[in-house]
């Protein structure tokens, strides 16, 4: 043997490791030998095997549960405990014991052989405490803001409750009004119904109805086509601007060129990136050449704006008015019928009620003949009824909404059991990343807005908090993530979505945006709503 070999022999292999090296305080009691005759023995923690005491921490894994090597890393999938005196004790996986790297978690350097890693626990402990203090301070400030959010929620509660009360009152009175108007309308209708039925048999009316239905269907179809064309146009626009002349794919190139021709756009490769917008603007002007229309035909503008109006016509009223125009007016309406025109507006309902009652009596007695314009009155009454009914419905909706708001206010799945998130409902946070500005309107919608023109994409609507496996509803972890889903679909990809990761901070702000997978965004941010009051005084576990 050469001398230097002998010198090296005492290293690692034979350097004895303390039997309790790497053992956490809670298990120290288990690491004591027992006597078996003259031999000191030890039983693996799981009781599966008895080994010589000398085999504990001898850098060879004897126990099936790996408990005999707490301090050497010889047993895979076990944990090593470093005491870190002056700081906080910590566990590291056995894979990091004696691997030549000083573990930051083991500031005492006990994870490596003696002399390899310096003990930095004093300074690290100090820095840790400073950091802890800063964090506590941040949380304290944040929690004050959070308290104000909770106070806000309490105010909201009162406000919404008040709103609910007044809405409920309003609904009662509106219901009465609707009932009254319904009576009038029903009455008027019963008077005119027979005449109307007769008139409805008119071929002209039937034809009109048929035309109406056809036109309505056509409009519906037309709208579908327009939407389709729009989305196809969007797809092609994105293809045109986004395609890589990749792989000389003739099909793509043809689609792009075809679209450019069709939409009157210049070829994208001819457009200099810098002056793209202006070029496109120029190209767009004058691309729609006016088609020659036959006289009387509607312009596209008319079609767009006036068709709905046309289709919304009350044909029954028209039918009733029709008579006026076809010369059936042998005698002018008696004053009685038209008296209403002279009655002051506020009195009109009472008057009409009275009039209706009177006229019906007179008619019944055959004193007056039913007026031709009664139908118009009928439809007016119906309209009044419809309007009132609609208002009632709106009020009821408001009530439902208010009740929902109230129920969500302290719902853990919504604004938290203290209502601390209510304040942020609809609050929009923005982050400019250069090419895009990202906006998240909390509890509503996330958006991507291009800074240099182009269309804004929805990145999804608020769906839920962090409902991942093992996450307790209402826990801080639960509120650390918001999910926004079903945003605008990526062409050739999924619908856009966002995971908003939040942590305690004194400001409501977005910090980073990353598209980790295509069309799936991770946005990080801070909010005081997550700042729970610090537990005073904070006691680190297992501190020695």
């Amino acid at each position, binding site marked *: *043997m*050469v001398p*230097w*070999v002998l010198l*090296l*022999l005492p*290293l*690692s*292999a*034979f350097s004895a490791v303390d039997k309790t090296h790497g053992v956490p305080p809670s298990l120290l009691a288990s690491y004591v030998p027992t006597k078996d005759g003259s031999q000191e023995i030890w039983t693996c923690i799981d009781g599966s095997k008895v080994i010589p005491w000398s085999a504990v921490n*001898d*850098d*060879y894994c*004897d126990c099936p549960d790996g408990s005999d090597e707490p301090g050497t*890393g*010889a047993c*895979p*999938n076990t944990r090593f405990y470093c005491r870190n005196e002056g700081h906080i004790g910590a566990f590291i*996986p056995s*894979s*990091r014991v*004696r*691997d*030549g*790297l000083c573990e930051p978690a083991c500031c005492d350097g006990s994870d490596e052989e003696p002399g390899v890693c310096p003990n930095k626990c004093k300074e690290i402990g100090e820095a840790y405490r400073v950091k802890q203090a800063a964090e506590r301070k941040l949380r304290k400030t944040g929690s004050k803001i959070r308290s104000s959010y909770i106070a806000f929620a309490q105010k909201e509660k009162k406000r919404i409750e008040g709103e609910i009360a007044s809405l409920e009152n309003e609904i009662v009175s509106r219901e009465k009004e609707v009932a009254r108007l319904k009576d009038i309308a029903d009455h008027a209708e019963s008077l005119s119904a027979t005449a109307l039925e007769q008139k409805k048999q008119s071929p002209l009316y039937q034809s009109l109805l048929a035309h109406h239905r056809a036109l309505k269907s056509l409009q519906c179809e037309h709208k579908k086509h327009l939407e389709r064309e729009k989305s196809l146009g969007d797809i092609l626009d994105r293809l045109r601007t986004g395609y*890589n*002349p*990749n*792989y*000389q*794919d*003739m099909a793509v190139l043809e689609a792009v060129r075809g679209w450019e021709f069709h939409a009157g756009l210049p070829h994208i490769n001819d457009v200099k990136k810098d002056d793209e917008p202006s070029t496109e603007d120029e190209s767009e002007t004058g691309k729609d050449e006016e088609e020659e229309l036959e006289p009387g035909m509607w312009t596209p503008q008319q079609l767009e704006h006036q068709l709905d109006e046309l289709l919304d016509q009350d044909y029954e009223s028209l039918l009733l008015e029709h008579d006026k125009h076809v010369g059936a007016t042998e005698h002018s309406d008696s004053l009685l019928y038209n008296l209403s025109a002279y009655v002051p507006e506020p009195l009109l309902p009472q008057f009409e009620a009275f009039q209706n009652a009177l006229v019906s009596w007179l008619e019944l007695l055959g004193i007056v003949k039913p007026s031709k314009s009664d139908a118009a009155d009928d439809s007016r009454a119906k309209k009044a009824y419809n309007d009132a009914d609609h208002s009632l419905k709106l009020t009821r909706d408001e009530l439902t909404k208010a009740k929902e708001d109230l129920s969500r206010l302290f719902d853990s799945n919504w604004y938290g059991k203290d209502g601390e998130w209510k304040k942020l409902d609809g609050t929009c946070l923005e982050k400019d*990343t*250069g090419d895009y500005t990202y906006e998240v309107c909390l509890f509503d919608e996330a958006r991507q807005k291009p800074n240099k023109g182009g269309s804004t994409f929805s990145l999804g609507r608020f769906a839920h908090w962090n409902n991942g496996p093992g996450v307790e509803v209402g826990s801080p972890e639960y509120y650390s993530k918001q999910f926004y889903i079903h945003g605008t679909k990526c062409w*050739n*990809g999924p619908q856009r979505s966002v995971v908003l990761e939040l942590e305690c901070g004194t400001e409501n702000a977005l910090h*980073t945006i*990353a*598209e*980790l*997978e*295509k069309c799936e965004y991770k946005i990080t941010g801070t909010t005081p709503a997550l700042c729970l009051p610090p537990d005073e005084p904070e006691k680190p576990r297992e501190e020695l």
Partner: protein
Amino acid sequence: MRALSSLLLLVALPVALSVKTQDFKTCSQASFCRRGRALASRAQENVSSWKSPYSVDADSLAISSDQALFTARVKSSLYPDIKFGLDVRVHDDGVVRVRLDEIDGLRKRYDEAASWALVAEPKISQDIKWTVGKNEVRATHGKKKDVEVIVAFEPLKVTLLRGGKEQVVLNGRGLLHMEHFRTKLAAQPSDIPEEALDAEDAQTVLSANNPRSWFEGDSEDGYWDEQWLSWTDSKPKGPESLSLDITFPNHGHVYGIPQHATSLSLRTTTGESPYYTDPYRLYNADTFEYLADSTMSLYGSIPLMHAHSADSTVAVFNAVGSETWIDIAHPTPKSTETQWISESGILDVFIIPGPTPEAVFEQYARLTGAQALPADWSLGYHQCRWNYVNSDDVRQVQAKFDEEDIPVDVFWLDIEYAEEHKYFIWDKKNFPDPLDMVNDVSANARKMVVIIDPHLKRTSSYPVYQEAVDNGVLVKTKDGNEYEGWCWSGSSAWVDFFNPTSWDWWKGLFKTYPIEGKFTWVDSTEDVHIWNDMNEPAIFNGPEISMPRDNIHHGGWEHRDVHNINGMLFSNLTSQAVMARSDPPKRPFVLTRSFYAGSQRFGAMWTGDNLGSWEHMAVGIKMVLANSLSGFAFSGSDVGGFFGNPEPEMLVRWYQVGAFSPFFRAHAHIDTKRREPYLLDEPYKSIVKDILRLRYSMLPIWYTTFREASVRGIPVVRPHYVVIPHDEKGFAIDDQFWVGGSGLLVKPVTEKGVTETTVYLPAEDQVYYDYFTHQAYRSAPKGKNITVPAALHQVPLFIRGGSILPTRERPRRSSPLMKKDPFTLRVALDKSGNARGELYLDDGVTYNHREGQIVWREFKASKAGKGIKLSSHDLVRAKPTDAVDGVALASYNPTNDFAKSIAGVRVEKVVVLGLEKKPTSVKVAGGKEVTFEFIPGVAASGKKEGVSSVLIIKDPAIPEMHLYSCFRMPFGFVLVLASDPF
């Protein structure tokens, strides 16, 4: 006109295949391939009267004074005025090099392909004597003088014989044809654009009584400018193709000529009912979403073909750089005919005589160089994705691996790290702190690999492009202007690495410190290594997604002449750049997609953009084996598949494939879901973690295997025929393979829903142990199929009896952190109680191994008296010339600094499989008894199957794993460790 009509057909029909097959030519769409195949079919039709027009002018024969080579004039009876020169030489290891070139032609044929491929000018044999006869010249060589080369004069034919048996025949079928340079006749109808012509007019019809038509056909088919889809190849040099038939009259299996997604034993493309209709094509191309069973060309080309039979292995290396098509036929099951059709270049063929697979590898490695010994960490697991989107993303991915305690060595960045895909230039919006990020990865003894592609964005604000312009090193168009094409960076230019001016400039770019007046990559460190992609070159708007063939490279050569070599120069130069950036140099890691013969000297390759499908997983293994046979041992395919979202089962199986690939990387397309192993649910996550840990435990085996590859050129993963050359049943097996010479046999499962599988045990009387359960299986002299369990968590892995495997069983975060870990030795006894194995170690990163800073040990178990002796020997001392790559060690000190640095590393455990009975004692040398545990079971020597006996020796307490000691395990059952004097 056949071409044009079928082309029109393709355009008319919408093709809904994954690969855009219509973007790539078939043989019938390339005029020279058409002509080559037409020549073969004419020969076939007139087989009785066919005679090659090429003959040697015996009077011109000149033998060099040292007998090393001879030259002669060759004439073609078709063109008596055209002169050809033949040069035949025999290297000192018996390789025969045959060259043929046109002499005093109108132009010069490209003759530099071999100069790029060869590692050095081969040594010429000194003990050859050429004997000139009336009809031929011949020479014998080889130790037993049993190898003979015969060059017949009329017609010209070159034959290599061994023991009187024909091994390789050139021009035996008379398909040799070197199209000489000619002048384009004026007013040829082909001046009119082809599409304007009808079918008959497209080819120039030669006069009816043309005396050459029996050989060349009666039309000038595509001699001059040629149309392909929307591109025109101007072909200013006209026809210059080369056809050559190479026959293996006594070999029924041929392998190699990568890269193709096809079976290892190459299938027929011609002859009677061929398996494929098109020849194997070599034309480096970015074949997007390629087919899993096709002769279509892929990203790289190595024109090397092995031919194998039970008693002989030979090969041919055809040093050609232009597009080449290879037809294969088996006229009988025991013979093979091939025809090689190349677009341009001289004939420069190396006949590699064998006679064994290993001899062929060594001979080929002497020509083009052996696999570079990789940095040890690069054999760990590589985690890649297009793209980790920012520096925090990289940090978080690393944190996740560490949280789950899953080992990984390298994190990769794809093209999105670069601002506007200007490589080297970080996109500071997402990577504001590249150095901090790299250092955070380095802090865990890991590395980063960052992509550098060969297309340079054409903007003067990009210093790399501007410097390339200033240096005049960009590829030019046929008109001499800077070539512009489209790639990731938009309008781009390509560096011409054939231009020597580009070399030093390119190497300078990778320096990590500032140099006055030029760009250097100061935003990188020595822990950043490089990935070279798109170097076919891939050009989105070019013909076949590559460069126009009439582009001009340095020296005036056309792109067509050098196309298949082009990709190699890029990665080779990058590799040299990475090596040279540090002083003393460190081993570079450069991954390349495109490659050529010789690429193995500089790095690793992968099989490109595969699909996440079971078929692609399976063919990936075959492709890696084919590459390994062709010298490029450091290869792998993307785990998980580049495209698509593999289901967890597929991903797990793919990790099992990857863990047994020389290069082990997971990669994913930007459109895919993330699939890093920690994202898997249980039980998949734990299974993958175990596979990764298995790979890491076996790194010493892989590294030891790479040593052999780097010295002898023997592949790292080896198909059956290489390991058991006589076993005919194994010749076509390509779904199970061996890890080097370690004795590990693996059959990764590549099918869905498998719970058991069949493994072929080769024809030998041997015991095979299941690596995990120690179940002993018996092979048989005629070979045997066994059925073994293969549930999702199981990868069928066997140790051949007679092997000793060194492993490191402690899981770590990354491989450099295992350097101080102890070893476990698995001793798998063979029937007679013997076993052997090797372990090679060096510092893993520098070139100090070339100065003897190494440990290379042999472990041996053998019967000694009534016991078994386990001993360890110094292999460096035994074979100093065979220890390291590149140099024969002049001096070697067993106590070198590296050996000293691992003196604390020990063997912590010895596991012996297959002992007959429990040892009475186990002793180390010197007589000290050590603790052991014995689990009775089947013995290696018997005939029984079942779980083998297992002896576990605890901590034999050999402080240095070595080195200077050996184990002895005398019978009576003692394991004695004795001192090995040195």
